[in-house]
């Protein structure tokens, strides 16, 4: 436990002494802020139109603003994940510092979890920034906070899963760019896999659509905590970290 924290702290520090963390935080906040602004604009326009038509159909912030925004955040997240994980192992391999870690009295798994945890914490920071936007909704409106909290939990779980995959890919190469590009490709694929389900109903298509990370986010965005979907993300995390451990072990036998 102590060792995990040592590694995690070191990783967090190197995120925050370099421009990486600030760049990611800023970009994510700006992009999400833009989405928020748009979603709110549409919501207000719809409200005015309804008033003009004299319809008093109840409008719901949770349904009209928060839910689509959470889905958007999950997709924007896909683009940021590779930038968080690409350096985790690739950089250590390139500079040779992996030799320091691997010859210290600390288990491989502690190194891996420490690094992954740092990546999760950074993405949690990024998500925290988006909360500023929602805070305005609470100030001027009256949305339900529970679905929002569950949505955030979903975002964090999804990020955790993708970060674990990114961590694994980062162990495969010395080159950060390769690690980043490959992770981005995998993230993108895991997003669009669900499209298969929209025109094909065969079993293989169902399996492919099930593997899409976005499918499982839908329930979270709705504000429903479905154990089935939580388990999906947890198993992605587990699998990603498991492969990372295997990859690190094989590194020793091959190098």
């Amino acid at each position: 436990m102590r060792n995990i924290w040592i590694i995690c702290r070191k990783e967090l520090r190197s995120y925050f002494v370099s421009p990486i963390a600030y760049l990611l935080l800023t970009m994510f906040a700006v992009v999400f802020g833009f989405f928020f602004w748009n979603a709110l604009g549409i919501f207000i326009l719809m409200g005015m139109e309804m008033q003009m038509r004299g319809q008093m159909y109840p409008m719901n912030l949770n349904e009209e603003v928060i839910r689509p925004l959470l889905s958007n955040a999950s997709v924007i997240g896909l683009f940021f994940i590779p930038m968080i994980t690409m350096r985790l192992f690739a950089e250590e391999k390139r500079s040779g510092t992996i030799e320091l870690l691997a010859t210290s009295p600390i288990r491989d798994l502690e190194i891996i979890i420490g690094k992954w945890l740092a990546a999760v914490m950074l993405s949690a920071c990024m998500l925290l920034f988006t909360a500023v936007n929602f805070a305005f909704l609470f100030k001027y409106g009256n949305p339900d906070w529970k679905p929002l909290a569950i949505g955030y939990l979903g975002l964090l779980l999804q990020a955790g899963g993708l970060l674990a995959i990114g961590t694994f890919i980062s162990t495969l190469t010395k080159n950060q760019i390769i690690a980043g590009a490959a992770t981005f490709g995998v993230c993108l694929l895991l997003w669009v896999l669900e499209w298969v389900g929209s025109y094909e109903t065969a079993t293989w298509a169902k399996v492919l659509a099930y593997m899409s990370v976005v499918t499982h986010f839908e329930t979270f965005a709705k504000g429903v905590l479905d154990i089935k979907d939580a388990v999906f993300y947890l198993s992605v995390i587990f699998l990603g970290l498991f492969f990372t451990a295997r990859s690190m072990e094989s590194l020793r036998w091959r190098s």
Partner: protein
Amino acid sequence: MITVKELTKRYARTVAVDHISFAVQKGQIVGFLGPNGAGKTTTMRMLTCFLPPTAGAATVAGFDVLEQPLEVKKRIGYLPESPPLYPEMETAEYLAFVGRLKGISGSDLNKRVDLVCERCAIADVKTKLLGRLSKGYRQRVGLAQAIIHNPDVLILDEPTAGLDPKQINETRELIRGLAGDHTIILSTHILPEVEQTCEQVIIINKGKLVATDSVHNLQNRARGAETILVELAGRNGDLDRSVAQSRLERISGVSRVQFKSAHGNRNVFEVESQKGFVRGDLARAVVESGWDLNELRPAAMSLEEVFLQLTGTDAGDAVEKGEK
């Protein structure tokens, strides 16, 4: 402190380390000598549990590298070929990080960091970014991280590579200063380094053990037969080679004289002597015969000669000697 038995590392196509066995006693400084690509780094990586051996066994401080790697790692300080530094960290911060990794905590940590900074003469760059340090400082920070947890065994992979002569001397001084408290293995392909810093030498070539002996013994082996190159020139432009050769052979202590080459009037002979210094007699004989003595120099330097002998064609003999 360290025992290595039949240690072997095989890669897909090559055998990097081939059945190496040796032992290192507590408190010794051992030089691990061999040309580039001999398998020095691979052997060290197996000792530090970075690479698992294909066959054979190695124990450090009584713990097997395969069975109890964590116990071994606790007792080893390792400086890889290029110091494993994080460029974005400051020196003291980096040392504290490594210290924590090695299991030091609390107030001990700061004390150890201060101590190794002083010992490795890096106290003046404590708050500098590692990425901005010069090669010499980087190497010393590397050494400092290796000794931060006061390990029983220090494994240093080419600790003086890439340093300037002054820094090389300082680093050797530092390593010698560390002996006693620590058992040290250092690898190098520079012979004088072994002569100056080590007590024991392990010579490997192409993955095979060539010799293990004390530096003293190896030097004696080398001194036994000294080879000297002599360049002569006749006074009036001509020199009878056979006369010169027989004159040189008559000097006491000379076992063999061989004509090597001639450039115009200048003739080079190779003189082998059995015991110690015959150079004085040699010079006197040449001058007394009325020739000019243009050059007189040892053909090879002590250990270097042994090394070349051992790693060269005579390696077969040497292995037998080494194993005895």
